[in-house]
């Protein structure tokens, strides 16, 4: 699979990474066999950067990955996990918890080092703590050789300048905001990150199933007019003999300024299909037509975390 450099880290990452939130049964019940096979298929297809978090399945995603990766040579994959978010409403970004969280994640994942470690969903807390306490603790873990590269993740565009104006990080992860419907990450933030040499990652090319043929899930936070446009786009793509999901994935991975796009599934068939899709050329005509369908709702998102951080 094609790779791109991740900022100034020296890492070359695949343009499509494996998001392991599904392995934590965040979205549906899965069997252990499905989980193990998904990881194997992801690696076989070249999705060799794996993104997880102690939040996903409250530890289950990391545990499943530890099982699935037990006999895989460590050099064959890169691991990104996170810390600070442990449940829907449980956040702890203290330095003490950083140290504990790193060791717990290493143990679950069965490795002696993480390639990337991110503060998870920082918009849910007063963010000055991330600058003053959390990131220095991550740097300490980095100096200890437990973590190679550090950064943070979250949804609102505001978080990136708030942190990066004050301190250095190696890479960041945004989600659901470089898609067919919402490109605010690229419009507002990526040029700023590039100027600083910060590695750029984006998760959620399908925007929580918004841009797929699947029924829209209850956790989708976008307003009704966005959902209506998405349904129209799904139908349009089907009429053209294509699929909105395919176009959505191809669109997200096509941007060379985004080192990697993280997409997750515990269904091996999905992973194989994605890997085939991104090897095919992007249909520019279809893209223009679908962008026209989304034009009226372009860049409409939602508020996430504390109001002050949006």
């Amino acid at each position, binding site marked *: 699979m094609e790779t791109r450099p991740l900022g100034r880290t020296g890492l070359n990452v695949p343009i499509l990474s494996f998001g392991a939130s599904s392995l934590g049964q965040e979205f549906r019940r899965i069997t252990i066999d499905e989980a193990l096979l998904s990881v194997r298929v992801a690696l076989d297809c070249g999705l060799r950067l794996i993104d997880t978090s102690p939040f996903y399945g409250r530890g289950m995603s990391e545990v499943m990955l530890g099982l699935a990766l037990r006999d895989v*040579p*460590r050099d064959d994959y890169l691991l990104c996990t996170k810390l600070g978010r442990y449940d829907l409403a449980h956040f702890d970004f203290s330095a003490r918890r950083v140290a504990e969280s790193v060791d717990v994640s290493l143990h679950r994942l069965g490795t002696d080092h993480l390639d990337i470690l991110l503060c998870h969903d920082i918009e849910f807390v007063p963010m000055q703590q991330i600058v003053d306490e959390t990131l220095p603790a991550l740097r300490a873990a980095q100096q200890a050789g437990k973590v190679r590269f550090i950064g943070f993740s979250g949804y609102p565009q505001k978080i990136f300048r708030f942190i990066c104006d004050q301190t250095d990080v190696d890479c960041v992860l945004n989600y659901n905001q470089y898609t067919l419907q919402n490109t605010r990450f690229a419009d507002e933030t990526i040029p700023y990150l590039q100027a600083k040499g910060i590695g750029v990652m984006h998760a959620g090319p399908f925007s929580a199933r918004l841009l797929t043929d699947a029924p829209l899930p209850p956790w989708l936070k976008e307003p009704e007019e966005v959902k209506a446009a998405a349904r129209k786009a799904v139908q349009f793509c089907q009429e053209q003999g294509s699929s909105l999901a395919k176009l959505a994935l191809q669109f997200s991975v096509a941007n060379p300024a985004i080192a990697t796009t993280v997409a997750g599934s515990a269904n091996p068939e999905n992973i194989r299909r994605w890997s085939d899709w991104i090897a095919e050329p992007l249909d520019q005509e279809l893209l223009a037509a679908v962008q026209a369908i989304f034009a009226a709702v372009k860049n409409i998102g939602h508020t996430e975390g504390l109001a002050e951080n949006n």
Partner: protein
Amino acid sequence: MFIDAHQHFWQYAAADYPWIDASMKRLARDYLPADLTAVALTEGVTGSVAVQARQTVQETDWLLSLAATNPFIRGVVGWVDLRSPTVADDLRCRVSNPKLVGVRHVVQDEPDPRFLLGDDFVRGLKTLEAFQLTYDLLLFPHQLPAAIELAALLPDQPFVLDHLAKPQIKAGNLADWEADIKALARHQNVCCKLSGLVTEADWDNWSRDDFRGVLDVALTAFGPDRLLFGSDWPVCLLAANYSEVVGIVSEVLATLSHSEQAAIKGATATRFYGLPQG
């Protein structure tokens, strides 16, 4: 796991590092743990063994103090005067620190080619055995015959050869060196570091091909279970950056199985030096 089993730190002062001459200006500055992690983590190296570069116990204690606050440093190879009658006391007060894993003397600077076999020195080495410390052999090729005798004389003392005894890659004078390496490797108590090679080539005009021959000799003679990767950073910077030094060895690694690669990248170092895991 990827351990750099041979690197140095220093706070530069000209009087302390007389071997850093005008041709080595690049080395005439401080090199501290944060400088190492800045280049090593990118290559996937997540721990190191810091090796002495001055012959003073003060330096050893300073390296141990760095290791105490920098978990990246998994072990320290220090210096004590092995010829001194007080060697046991000098070691006893330091071995309670688990980060002290071995001792090295700059034998390459000793004029006597049989320095290693001096009575006082051998007595000091026997003390290491009692303290379960390893010994790093820093030699030039003409001192290898003495090292071979020493390995036979102290079969229970773990030795590791630094920098393959600095083969004369630039001059291409390798026949005696190869024979001696093979003879040394017959002693199972000796391991060998794949380190320090780039500075034995032409600093300004080397290629990866320059090292294939000597790396092959080491690989055949010792086997992966007795080989350790080391960068010799920051000395390597005279000829190559950290990434290039890893690249030289990774070419050899690419021909090996995963478990053989794992040995050279850290398992041998962990076993030989008794390093803590992670």
